[in-house]
């Protein structure tokens, strides 16, 4: 019955003169999501609204599921189109619509008509009253409630007549691409994909960097990260995933620095590398999946020490989340199953039994001096290993 969707958006409406930029970004993301769906669609922006028209047969459930991945969408309304063939015909169609969509008639309703085409012979108020009467005549149990109706039946008179009453909630947020770009430090864990999702929700485009350490980490661990990036890219759009070989830096730290400081020093160099790539690729911030106190390297002292190497802002959207809350989101966005695959990542291979939990910046800096003379070259070499994998939900 439904052949189109009216896409509602919330915050974009208030963005003043930039509004068209936000709408363009939203339309683009909707098209990206629809590429995953069977069938052909047309996306149109008219008079402050976005419509998705199906041009062929399509799978309703699949289409709705995919539209629900588009940030900026606050609601998805399935629309029925009716040709304008007089009020009689419209009345019939309205009765048919109500009967199909609401098998249980023990409900209250209100008709809300809009005339985009002003030459229609009835005014909005008249349409409301007349169609309301038609529905009441057809279904004796149904009642009108103009203040708090169960069903708001929208009837829009355009070239065709649009009928809709259901609104499926969207993810909210802002369309990706409307708020610049940031670099996500993506590991194989549960947290970082969620962090990427959260920041993308505010309209930020995402690129990612992954550190691998062959032979200590395997190709499967790397594939897992590509798979995670692909799952996240359903929401964020295509992701440029930078894969950096971190082995030599890690081994140098292992040899020259105190073992309990290995992870924290390692993380400082990861941030430095991520920032270097971020700056080269016009990213305006870094994103991590850190949450205060989750592990030794995420105590508030450790976060301060890691943060110190960066000049770009570091976004930590999970900072106040408990693990279970993060797991809930990762299950919702579909990354959890992949995240828990048991491949070792480079943060765990040499981890000390008792890593420092309250690192002192001056002490850490002093110990990093042990790397003087080799680290610059190792950093340079690591950057040269950068392998860029373009990950998209289309491929």
């Amino acid at each position, binding site marked *: 019955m439904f052949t189109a969707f009216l896409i509602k958006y919330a915050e974009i409406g208030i963005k003043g003169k930039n509004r068209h930029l936000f709408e363009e970004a939203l339309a683009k993301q909707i098209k990206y999501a629809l590429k995953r769906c069977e069938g052909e669609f047309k996306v149109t922006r008219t008079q402050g609204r976005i419509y998705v028209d199906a041009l062929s047969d399509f799978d309703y459930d699949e289409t709705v599921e995919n539209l629900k991945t588009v940030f900026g969408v606050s609601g998805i309304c399935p629309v029925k189109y009716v040709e304008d063939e007089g009020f009689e015909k419209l009345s019939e169609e309205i009765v048919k619509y109500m009967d199909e969509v609401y098998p249980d008639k023990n409900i209250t309703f209100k008709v809300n008509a809009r005339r985009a085409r002003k030459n229609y012979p009835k005014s909005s108020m008249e349409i409301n009253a007349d169609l309301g009467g038609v529905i009441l005549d057809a279904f004796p149990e149904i009642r009108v409630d103009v203040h708090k109706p169960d069903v708001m039946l929208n009837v829009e008179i355009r070239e065709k007549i649009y009928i809709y009453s259901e609104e499926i909630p969207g993810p909210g947020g802002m369309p990706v691409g409307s708020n610049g770009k940031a670099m996500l430090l993506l590991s194989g864990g549960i947290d970082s994909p969620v962090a990427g999702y959260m920041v993308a929700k505010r309209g930020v485009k995402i690129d990612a960097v992954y550190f691998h350490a*062959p*032979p*200590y*980490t*395997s190709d499967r661990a790397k594939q897992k990260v590509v798979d995670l990036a692909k799952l996240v890219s359903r929401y964020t759009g295509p992701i440029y995933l930078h894969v950096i070989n971190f082995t030599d830096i890690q*081994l140098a730290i*292992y*040899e020259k620095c105190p*073992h309990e400081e290995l992870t924290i020093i390692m993380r400082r160099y990861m941030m430095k590398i991520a920032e270097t790539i971020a700056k080269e690729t016009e990213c305006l911030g870094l994103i991590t999946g850190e949450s205060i106190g989750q592990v030794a390297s995420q105590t508030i002292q450790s976060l301060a020490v890691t943060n110190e190497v960066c000049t770009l802002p570091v976004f930590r959207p999970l900072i106040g989340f408990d693990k279970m809350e993060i797991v809930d989101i990762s299950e919702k966005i579909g990354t959890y199953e992949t995240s828990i695959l*048991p491949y*070792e990542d480079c943060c765990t*291979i*040499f*981890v*000390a*039994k008792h890593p420092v939990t309250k690192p002192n910046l001056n002490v850490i800096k002093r110990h990093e001096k042990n790397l003087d003379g080799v680290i610059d070259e190792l950093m340079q070499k690591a950057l040269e290993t950068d392998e860029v994998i373009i990950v998209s939900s289309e491929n």
Partner: protein
Amino acid sequence: MEIYLDNSATTRCFDEVAGLMTTIMCEDYGNPSSLHRKGMQAEQKIRYAKEVIAKNLKVNEKEIFFTSGGTESDNLAIRGCAYANCRAGKHLITTQIEHPAVLQTMKHLEEEGFRVTYLPVDEKGSIRLEDLQRAITGETILVSIMHTNNEIGSLQPIEQAGALIKKMNPRILFHVDAVQGYGKFRIYPKKMKIDLMSVSGHKIHGPKGIGFLYVDEKVKIKPIVFGGGQQNGLRSGTEAVPSIVGMAKAIEMIYHDLENEAERLYQLKEAFTEGAKRIEGVSLNGPAGRDGAPHIVSVSVSGVRSEVLLHALEDKGIYVSAGSACSSHKPQPSATLQAIGLSKDLLSSTIRFSFSVFTTREEIDYTLQVMCELIPMLRRYTRK
């Protein structure tokens, strides 16, 4: 350079086998159950395959049943016999070092009310016949013992076990998982008193997804999958004609020159173990030389995690296995390595090298040379 030393996980298909299979898939694609000529031709192909296998085992063609591989053969043998004979008793015997296809099937039967005895092994990975003798009770209906262990290459006293079981009670069924031994040894079930024997195609340069179960015609066994009643109702489902014929071809090729090839593999094994032993901190697991299988060498490298060594070797084009490939999905210590009493720190430092007809002496020498270089370097960086 690509050096594939993981032949106990799977082997490269013989070119002749792949070629033959392509022809069957594209030309002789009939369903052997179809009544027309195309079906008849396909049936003839299967008949030929059965002849090859039956002749090789010196058994009757009617006693060969095709399955999807070793795992299904083990499942069919153990569950099929347990269900068919549970009135005679509910006790089963196996070993601690079986492949998961056997161990997990036994675990499943335990949940269904069967009792299972898991025989221990000595430090070389072989069962003791006294243990077997002691385990057999009036309730025992099935004994399942592997021919060759997949992780350390230890051989089990199959012929003596068969004789012992039948001497104690001729009604007890004897199943042998010969997935790793078949294609390396000549195995004659009738002579060895084996009632059921599992074999897999892809361990002997045949295709994946095919295997067979030998079932002595006197054995009472029930099917575990149901359908169109193919293969005498024991294993329903359209026969995988190309794979069946491919496997038969591989068997012909492997057994054509078996003794010379086994001798060559033993020499490779000896060269490899001699070289490996010279590397500091390297020890060998399981039986040495000709006491074990010709194609499997298990090596522990103290202070180096097996996964790291595996990936470092991979980087040099050498493919090996950490423990057993089939159990590498779960990072649990191997049951076999625990059963032979390997010390805890060596459990996660063990690598398996397994050879095939394609393995050359040059490959062995190169691998040893790479190991000599890698191991001291990797040992410098370990988890503290």
